């Protein structure tokens, strides 16, 4: 860029020097009476927006619809997806927060997270998959002799989380086995026999990763290009057919439901 152009963009007299701001030299005349932040008497606070909260990352407004927002949330939180999907199922028809917390804690016992129940539910709520229903409360007063009156909380608030129509739709998509079918019968169709073996093997009893690795290594198809047991564990876990529980890999309900389909597809392929 030529220097004459630079001169037009840069006014040296107006150069901003953050270090030139003197905290102790505050001109009260400059303050805006209508701006509540001016009461703190500090120049940089004045321009700060009143609401510092960030916009939700996954919201119907941002993704163009609640279903899209929820799917995007799941896509970007793969490790939490099973529990998020389960919450949608449990909250269909409404679920008390206390009951939901017990269920979520149990589900996350083998897959711990810093996200507690309310955090997960708030994520789903912002995306449009859940609604929160707060019960009505009334002021309780109690006379305890000698005219002394006390305020006492007699009933603890236990709100209800309810799955929305969008949440129900996503739950249906997540639990109908479509992701599993796409993976096993389409994208990874070449490895159908391996998937069949792994699922049958794990269905007999929970297995370790080493057990699955040994089983997979025996197949010719995984030698070139090389595929290890971890790949099949990963794909089955991602499609909700496999889960880590009690220090071993186990088939999920969905996995057990899908197993006959895998067997049938394998038989058909053999014919």
């Amino acid at each position, binding site marked *: 860029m030529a220097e004459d152009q630079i001169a037009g963009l840069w006014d040296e007299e107006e150069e901003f020097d953050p270090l030139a701001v003197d905290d102790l030299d505050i001109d009260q005349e400059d303050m805006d009476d209508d701006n509540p932040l001016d009461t703190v008497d500090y120049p940089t606070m004045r321009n700060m927006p009143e609401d510092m909260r960030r916009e939700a990352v996954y919201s119907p407004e941002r993704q163009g619809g609640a279903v899209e927002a929820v799917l995007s949330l799941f896509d970007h939180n793969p490790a939490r997806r099973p529990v998020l999907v389960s919450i949608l199922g449990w909250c269909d028809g409404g679920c008390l927060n206390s009951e939901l917390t017990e269920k979520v804690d149990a589900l996350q016992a083998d897959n711990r997270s810093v996200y507690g129940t*309310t*955090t997960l539910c708030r994520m789903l709520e912002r995306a449009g998959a859940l609604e929160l229903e*707060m019960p009505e409360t009334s002021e309780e007063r*109690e006379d305890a002799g000698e005219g002394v009156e*006390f305020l006492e909380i007699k009933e603890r*608030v236990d709100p209800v989380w309810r799955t929305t129509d969008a949440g129900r739709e996503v739950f249906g998509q997540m639990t109908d086995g479509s992701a599993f079918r796409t993976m096993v019968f389409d994208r990874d169709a070449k490895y159908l026999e391996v998937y069949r073996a792994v699922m049958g093997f794990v269905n007999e009893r929970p297995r370790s990763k080493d057990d699955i690795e040994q089983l997979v290594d025996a197949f010719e198809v995984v030698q070139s290009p090389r595929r290890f047991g971890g790949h099949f564990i990963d794909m089955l876990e991602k499609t909700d057919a496999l889960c880590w529980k009690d220090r071993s890999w186990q088939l999920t309900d969905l996995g057990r439901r899908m197993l006959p389909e895998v067997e049938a597809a394998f038989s058909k392929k053999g014919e």
Partner: protein
Amino acid sequence: MAEDMIAAQAAEQEADLVALMDGRARMYGLMARLFLKEVDKAALTELQGMRFPAATGNAKVDEGYHMLYDYLRTSWDDSINELAIDYVRTFIGHGVNGFSAAYPFESVYTSERRLMMQEARAEVLQTLRENNLKRGSWTEGEDHIALELEFMQRMAMRAADALRAGDEDAAIEHLRTQRTFAQDHLLNWLPMMTEDMRRFSRTMFYQGLAQLVMGYAEEDAAVLDELLDSVDQAA
């Protein structure tokens, strides 16, 4: 007969005083805990199980109790997050200019440049040492509001113990220590800090706590004055 009645009356008064000291200790302990760190699940459950007096006669204390009660009766698990956020917003803030939060240190409010670890901290530390109180796991300035409130709690407990043991002189000495500490420290900066709390906090909980601690500190100072004045008059 008359002697018996006088003795009974004196015993009753002493029992009232012990109860008063125990109550003061509990109250200062509660407030110290609420300023020390964020409300967790256990603290929230305990607070929800408490009974708040509806009318104490002190407008600030009453307003504080009502605000706390109003917040707590609609509180649930999510409130722990909300209170943690508000605790940071109220006491830590996001600026470095000394005006971005209700800083819980006396030095900030009593030093010209609003800095921590100033004269007030040295004085509080001296008072703690004079009263055989040692720093435990605390790693920040001793002029933190939670520590100052806890000091009042400890002194109230000592006064109660002394009364139980029949050592009135020791109890009076503990009360004098508390009065001096409240005048020289707590009441010296609490009005400014609680005003800032009301400015920065967004939950009824911390708004209420600001009112409660201010009202209680004022009320307690009046109680201490009354008790010690009656002792001085009797002497």
